[in-house]
């Protein structure tokens, strides 16, 4: 007989949602309030600006695209945005996030009807084929300065050990970036503040790792959809004390849920991993799965943040269940800059090599006692979709169940729920 678990709301979830909403309210008011705004990709080196401008806000293109998709629906903004991009001569098969954020910029429209936020600077990390160019076009269109940094090597294997020439190259670029910022904005950089910012980022990652490790518990205390706003906070604002506090609360509440036997599903029939990010207009798929007793416990994109706070063995492997290395928290400027480079490089390499993705997914399945994987093949994101057929085959050969659905995270014209739900 199936056991029915106690389901209860995650109290800290509303806080995470509120942080997200407040961020967008702040962004929309930023120009009127004269705050220092930057735009670029989510992983752009925003921490350096945060160490210079107390009122600083960064608008990550990916979450902005999600914001446009979700909150602009009523006024038809998502469709008008992608059409505006096509009118500028760009093809429909390009990155969905990029097109949505460009569209909002070209139309000079935000959800709710306000103009697109005007930044003082565009910053980027050149991670996939798009991010550098995405930001280049924004800086040209908006007429503001642009700075981009990159990792030069996406070494081809499963190792997570930092590739030292790439790290050194990035560290050099970050030093240049500091000098450029000081010169461009005539503002001095505060090394102590930056160190604290990166220490917070490190702490957020440690807390995140502990939360994901707690997901190993059966029944799982959280599920993929519940993790979404925290994942966003972790990716976006991990450097803020507010997020360290939020993730501390999440970890503690998760522990408490385990102690009290609280789960998101009344019945956990099986545990699966969702690989990739879901289309934001179709999060109802998680309810569909929940109603069928399928616990979507996490994704390898959750685990990919963990190597930066765990010990990596000499052969480049890491054990996601090993204790989090709180000792590694950066203590000075050099350590802070190096950590910024390593965490950047590690998130860059995760996406580009099927062997590394497979390794990470195997580790995730093992740690979280997953029985199968739902792969999202995103037609609008080549980074998350790289090597999916290879990864899927490897996982199936290991004996796991696997299914794949196609979507475009932001462009709803490429979505068919009847097909996807049938496949599920």
């Amino acid at each position: 007989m199936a056991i029915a678990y106690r389901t209860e709301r995650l109290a800290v979830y509303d806080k995470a949602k509120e942080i997200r909403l407040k961020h967008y309210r702040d962004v929309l008011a930023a120009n009127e309030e004269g705050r220092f705004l930057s735009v670029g990709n989510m992983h752009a080196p925003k921490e350096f600006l945060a160490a210079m401008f107390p009122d600083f806000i960064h608008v990550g293109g990916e979450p902005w695209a999600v914001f446009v998709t979700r909150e602009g629906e009523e006024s038809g903004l998502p469709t008008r945005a992608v059409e505006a991009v096509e009118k500028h001569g760009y093809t429909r098969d390009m990155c969905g996030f990029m097109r949505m954020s460009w569209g909002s910029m070209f139309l000079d429209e935000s959800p709710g009807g306000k103009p697109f936020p005007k930044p003082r600077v565009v910053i980027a990390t050149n991670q996939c084929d798009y991010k550098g160019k995405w930001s280049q076009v924004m800086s040209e269109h908006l007429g503001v300065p642009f700075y981009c940094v990159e990792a030069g090597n996406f070494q081809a294997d499963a190792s997570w050990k930092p590739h030292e020439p790439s790290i050194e190259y990035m560290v050099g670029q970050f030093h240049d970036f500091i000098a450029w910022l000081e010169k461009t904005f005539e503002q001095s950089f505060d090394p102590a503040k930056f160190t604290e910012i990166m220490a917070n980022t490190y702490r957020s990652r440690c807390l995140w790792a502990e939360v994901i490790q707690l997901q190993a518990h059966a029944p799982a205390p959280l599920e993929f959809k519940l993790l979404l706003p925290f994942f966003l906070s972790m990716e976006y604002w991990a450097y803020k004390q507010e997020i360290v506090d939020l993730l501390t609360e999440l970890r503690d509440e998760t522990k408490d849920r385990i102690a009290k036997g609280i789960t998101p599903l009344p019945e956990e029939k099986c545990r699966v991993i969702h690989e990739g990010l879901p289309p934001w207009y179709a999060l109802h798929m998680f309810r569909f799965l929940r109603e069928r007793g399928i616990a979507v416990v996490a994704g390898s994109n959750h685990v990919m943040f963990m190597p930066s706070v765990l010990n990596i063995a000499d052969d480049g492997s890491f054990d996601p269940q090993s204790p989090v290395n709180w000792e590694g928290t950066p203590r000075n400027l050099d350590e802070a800059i190096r950590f910024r480079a390593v965490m950047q490089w590690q998130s860059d390499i995760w996406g580009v090599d099927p062997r590394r993705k497979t390794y990470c997914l195997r580790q995730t399945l093992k740690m979280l006692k997953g029985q199968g994987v739902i792969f999202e093949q995103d037609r609008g994101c080549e980074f998350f979709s790289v090597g999916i057929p290879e990864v899927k085959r490897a996982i199936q050969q290991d004996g796991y169940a696997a299914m794949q659905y196609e979507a475009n995270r932001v462009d709803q014209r490429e979505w068919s729920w009847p097909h996807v739900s049938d496949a599920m």
Partner: protein
Amino acid sequence: MEHSSLTQPFFDLVEERHQYAREWKARTGGKVLGYFCTYVPEELLYGADILPVRIMGGLEPADVSEAHIASMYCPFSRDCLSEGLLGRYDYLDGITITKSCMHIMQTFRSWAQHIPLEFSYFMGMPSLVGGHLAPKYLVTELEGLKKALEGWIGREITDADIDRGMEIVNANRGLLRDMYELRKPDPPLLWGGEAAAVVMSSMVTDKREHNSRLQSLLAGLAQRQDGPKRGSRLMIVGSEIQDLELYDIIEGGGGVVVMDEHCFGSRYFWNQSRPGQDRMGAIADRFIERPRCPLKDVNERVRLGYILNLAQEWKVDGVLLEHQKFCAPHEYDLPHIKRVLEENNIPTFLMEMDMTLHRGAITTRTEAFLEMLELDLV
């Protein structure tokens, strides 16, 4: 299309490239290394007595790659992998790539995973080539490749080896530039399809042999009687244009391709490495200074002015802007290139390529474009 006896041998080299490499191996006992992107330091490979060959697609629908690369990646990357999986490159001893687009990097990785080889090497490459840190970083990566090659071939690659390699590849680059000069007159001394076959054959032939063939070609072209007649002068800008039939369509319709800026054309060979004591620095500098692919034109746009200059110097009447379906890098540059050319009164024509040519559609559209150019010319 029938080719002149002057250029037919180059078409044959492209057509029979696999046989050529097999025979080269049998003759020399050397190793053959396949590469996927023009950012490869051929100086080092020739210095190591390795024959580098550019991996090309088979230009035929093949579904063997489907199980490895999703259909949302460019046809070229899928086609190349299919060729490997079908065993057409069974003579390769190794493969290499430098950091490039996500599409072709995936081809490299699936190839390395599924096709057993002695050697496979991924080399880092900066995209932000304008940055002052890029050359130093690139030298580190080149040193890494050199060391890996030495381990593979079992001997040191000496300075003298690198100098020799540099001399061989620089000579080839110089001769190809000379050939491109012969496309400046009106009419040019050779067809675009012929020039493309010469460049492509240089990617799959021992360059020492190619150099002597090129020298004879250049001498022959100076005396040529059966060259192109006057027609609309076209340039092709794009990515992996390896289908020579495209030139037949364009040039059979009354145009003549006099210039190009793509990976199977001028972008491959345009500049030389400067010999000197700092050999790795010279190879790195060449990569930094070479005509940029869109992926490497990030912080400041250099490509637009560069393409416009070529179009003006070769006095082109119109430009064909090609991209492979799903090719992100070229798709984000094309609207900008189109704008700049048209602002300078150079008409453009967009062409999306798939695995195989849609001959009928391309013929109709090219004819319409040529007709429009003719009217303008009148």
